[in-house]
């Protein structure tokens, strides 16, 4: 069955499956009762969706209720209605929209440049074992280094503007991406390289026709982690020092003890993070389809 699934991966990581562990249970159920498996699936999915919505409503309603009757201190917990009200004011009269654009801008730029640079760096290790051998320990050290701790240095180096945030997001992603791509490069089947040479291929052709497509699943598998890392980089950059951005808004709200606004910031960031995650999933799907990567 899997053989016909054109969107699965030949790498060790199979994001499409990891995404829904639920699917396996469903498959198992289907093999026991095949005749109405599909119907049951549909029913289950509807029940799951309804359950999720219900739980969500309960949580928010409980939050609202408890802060109103005083079981939760509204000073710290605010309340959903207050948060919504503040958000609306910030959107229409404040700078929230501009802040969102600012934060997502530095995140996306850092993510794209970091992932691309890292992937190219990782792929480049294929060309020389010596070069790869020399670089490997430094890559590992860089990976272990808490890059967020470099934030203050970056702000001093690149100023308190947009650029220092993008650089921090870039640094957060470039090493993971390089390590993933290098993992792909190291796992290339040597027999495939032999085949290419036997067909008269030059090294450049072995690289473009075998090494790069072989490593793509590894590179793609680093995308999801990278988007979260990039966002964290941007926010911390704004925490340290900034004139704009959702991160700055949260810090600012904290200093003036505007708890409502802190909560608005937290929710906006959660939503932003989710949207970017979905965006990356779409990107993954598009990339895998384009490269026609098939499980082998």
């Amino acid at each position, binding site marked *: 069955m899997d*053989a*016909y699934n*054109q969107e699965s991966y*030949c790498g060790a990581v199979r994001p499409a499956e990891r995404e829904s562990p639920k699917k396996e249970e469903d498959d198992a159920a289907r093999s026991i009762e095949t005749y109405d498996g599909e119907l049951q699936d549909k029913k289950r999915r509807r029940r799951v969706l309804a359950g999720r919505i219900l739980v969500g409503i309960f949580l928010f309603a409980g939050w609202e209720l408890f802060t109103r009757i005083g079981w939760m201190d509204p000073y710290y917990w605010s309340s959903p209605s207050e948060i919504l009200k503040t958000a609306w004011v910030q959107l229409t009269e404040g700078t929230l929209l501009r802040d969102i654009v600012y934060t997502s801008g530095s995140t996306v730029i850092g993510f794209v440049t970091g992932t691309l640079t890292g992937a190219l760096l990782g792929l480049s290790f294929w060309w020389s074992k010596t070069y790869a051998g020399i670089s490997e320990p430094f890559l590992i050290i860089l990976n272990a280094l808490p890059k967020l701790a470099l934030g203050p240095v970056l702000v001093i180096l690149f100023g308190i503007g947009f650029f220092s945030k993008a650089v921090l997001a870039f640094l957060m992603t470039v090493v993971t991406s390089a390590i993933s791509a290098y993992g792909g490069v190291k796992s290339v*089947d040597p*027999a*495939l390289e*032999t*085949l*290419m*040479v*036997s*067909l*008269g*291929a030059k090294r450049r*052709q072995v690289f473009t*026709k*075998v090494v790069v*497509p*072989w490593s*793509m699943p590894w590179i793609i598998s680093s995308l999801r982690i990278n988007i979260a890392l990039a966002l964290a980089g941007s926010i911390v950059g704004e925490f340290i020092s900034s004139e704009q951005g959702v991160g700055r808004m949260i810090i600012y709200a904290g200093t003036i003890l505007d708890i409502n606004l802190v909560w608005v910031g937290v929710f906006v960031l959660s939503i932003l993070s989710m949207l970017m995650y979905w965006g990356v999933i779409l990107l993954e799907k598009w990339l895998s389809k384009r*490269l*026609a*990567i*098939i*499980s*082998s």
Partner: protein
Amino acid sequence: MSESCKIEVIGVSKIFRRDGKNVAALAETNLAVREGRFASIIGPSGCGKSTLFNIIAGLMPPTTGDVTVDGQSIVCRAGTVGYMLQKDLLLPWRTILDNIILGLEIRGEPRAKAVERALPLMEKYGLKGFDSHYPNELSGGMRQRAALLRTLLYDRDIMLLDEPFGALDAQTRLSMQNWLLEIWKDFGKTVLFVTHDIDEAVYLSDDVYVFSARPGRVRAKIAVPIERPRKPEDLTTERFMELKHHLLELLSEERDPAEEIS
């Protein structure tokens, strides 16, 4: 002798160095195959058959000796012969069609032209309608067909086939053998074929080279005097049986000392 020979292997040997020790994989080997002939190599596993092929294909240098095609040395010149390696090695992210034209693509031929050449071959040799499928959707036999067509389309006078049907079941194997004979008849290639199956060697070949155990060397060269085109019925004739017994004897003499060592 050398004038009429397409490919000659002259005194080729190979010693690998591994963990500071020398491992003799192939002792001095001589082969000569005339143009358009089908020659098989059979011998115990580990006797250096694949090593010999790798040397002929120019993928590694021999420790001693020379390989010539039409009298010219081809040592370390990859790409002068068509080589089908022991595994089918289809690229999983490419369609069957794109796998088959890989050699032409590497040579820089425009895709449209390559496709124009590949499609009729696929149609004629049993891969019709599989062009946009991916390798993992194909059975073992079909994959071997694709790998062989890739080698064929690479368009060299000489084809080296390293145990191409080794992993197939008996039924598929026989149909693939006939399929290969058909291609060989149509294209008149000079074929060097490695197998561990005596029936297969006799059924397909004009000449069978029997190799000794490691380090391998040609122990005997047996001509197969069965007329072509060959049919599956030939597999049960008396003459076939005699040849088979003869080869079996030669091989079993080889296997015993090897087993004592290991």
